[in-house]
């Protein structure tokens, strides 16, 4: 690409700015909604399977299957049931986001030092109090890790969801590919990448703010 064409690309971007920003917000909405749903359902499931160890393998196994299926195939499989559009897209993205969140919640809570739980129990804390005041705060770095993975994966996968009518930045990418217009493709691809990096950074900052000081220090020392 020559210098000249680069200037043209920026001109192209500013010409398309409104559309790019609209699609960016659409993208954020789809992935954000899917991840939020996955948190609301995945964290409780993750907690539940630490209480019912027998269910753990089954549930993680099921979540694993969704994770293993190629995203395009999963979108294809869902069309006969939910059709096309935003709803089936969010549903598939939700399924993708589920596993890292369930798995990390499960591992995070299970890796809390049993002696800490025993101390809490022996002191007379109810199991709900132990969960809320001890297990969840201590598992938080792990759970946040799961959420970050889910979010980043979802921002990528959401571009494919545009194939079943989800909208978002994928529209630009696929339009660009089909029209052999690299500017158009880049106008979708670059914001998607920046969004993924930005979201990960933002969640990292949230994690730092939420993770209790005492354990943050342990991690730095260790």
């Amino acid at each position: 690409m020559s210098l000249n064409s680069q200037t043209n690309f920026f001109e192209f971007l500013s010409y398309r700015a409104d559309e790019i920003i609209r699609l960016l917000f659409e993208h954020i909405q789809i992935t954000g909604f899917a991840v939020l749903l996955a948190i609301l359902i995945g964290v409780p499931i993750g907690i539940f399977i630490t209480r019912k160890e027998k269910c753990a393998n089954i549930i993680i196994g099921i979540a694993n299957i969704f994770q293993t299926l190629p995203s395009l195939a999963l979108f294809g499989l869902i069309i006969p049931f939910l059709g096309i559009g935003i709803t089936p897209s969010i549903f598939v993205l939700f399924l993708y986001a589920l596993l890292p969140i369930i798995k990390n919640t499960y591992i995070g809570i299970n890796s809390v030092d049993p002696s800490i739980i025993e101390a809490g129990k022996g002191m007379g804390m109810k199991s709900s109090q132990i969960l809320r005041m001890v297990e969840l705060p201590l598992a938080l770095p792990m759970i946040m890790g799961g959420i970050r993975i889910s979010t980043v994966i979802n921002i990528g996968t959401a571009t494919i969801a545009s194939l079943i009518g989800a909208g978002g930045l994928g529209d630009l990418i696929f339009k660009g590919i089909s029209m052999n217009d690299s500017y158009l493709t880049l106008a979708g691809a670059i914001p998607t990448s920046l969004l993924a990096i930005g979201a990960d950074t933002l969640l990292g900052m949230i994690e730092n703010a939420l993770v209790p000081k005492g354990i943050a220090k342990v991690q730095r020392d260790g």
Partner: protein
Amino acid sequence: MIELKNVTKSYDNNKIIVDKLNLKIEKGEFIVLIGESGCGKTTTMKMINRLIEPTTGKIYIEGKDIMSMDPIELRRKIGYVIQKVGLFPHMTVGQNIELIPMLQKWDKAKRKARAMELLDLVDLPANEYYNRYPNELSGGQQQRVGVIRALAANPNIILMDEPFSALDPLTREQLQKALLKLQDELQKTIIFVTHDMDEAIKLGDKIAVMKDGKILQYDTPEQILKNPKDDFVEYFVGKNRLWKSPEMLFARDIMNKKVATISIKRSHAHAIELMKEKGVNTLVVLDTESSKPQQPLGIVRKKDLKLNEKHSAKIKDIMHTDLITVPESMNMVDVLNLMAEQQLKNVFVIDDNKNLSGIITQSSILNVITEVVTD
């Protein structure tokens, strides 16, 4: 008072961990449960706060069956300290200590005052430590916090599961001392599990030696050391243990009961005769010759007799009345200190009625040492 009646804990109906165990613990007593791993000592302790529930049998606290109590309420009345400390790493020292008072809805000022008071009690200056996180403390400091966290809501009973066994010997000793100091001030009922006999002897008012889910002997440290009930207890106590714990040897254990005595009515000449006959340098002066218990009146020494060549002199005129006596219950360390301080070759032992019961000489001490060390 805590009472365990016929308590059995078994898993899958065949593996018996605790076997028809009976145990009575008085209020304010410091009890040590000791035994090898797998003997059921920790299980026994954990049944008291229902972390483990008995298969059969009853446990009463202040006469109340604990199975009829709410386990959460029960546990909040019982302090709990474990080997791995289990401080909440995401909470400050202050928050850790105040957790149970907070759950019991104490107001903030009261909780904080309590935490500060307890920190000072274990020599962790409150200003410095209140806002620290557990990982900023040493292992010994963490366990100090662990102990006072258990005391925070002012329970009458404290359960301690090998609380000091992960610490280095020096720190362990400091914490043992700190615990004894706390106990002097607070008079809690403490059930302490350990596998370390030195620790048990140092801390316990009573020791329960356990094996295969049963208590073999439940007695004072002194009795466990001196009169082990069977071979296992003796083996577990260790043959040389008594010697390692000289504070468990008392004047009555090391004294010689045969004391050369003389009646106050006798004469100088008679005293010389007696000393020759018995091969001693001192005689204890008693009121009469009879063997009934009497208070010692004084002593005569060989060198006094030589100075006093008048053979007709009466004993009462030449005896020394500044006789140094010790009670039967004085421990060996104190006896030795006294003898060293006063440069005594021997001291006399008196019983509760102030009657003469024996003599401790350098040779009687040597005899005890020989017996204990070479046994």
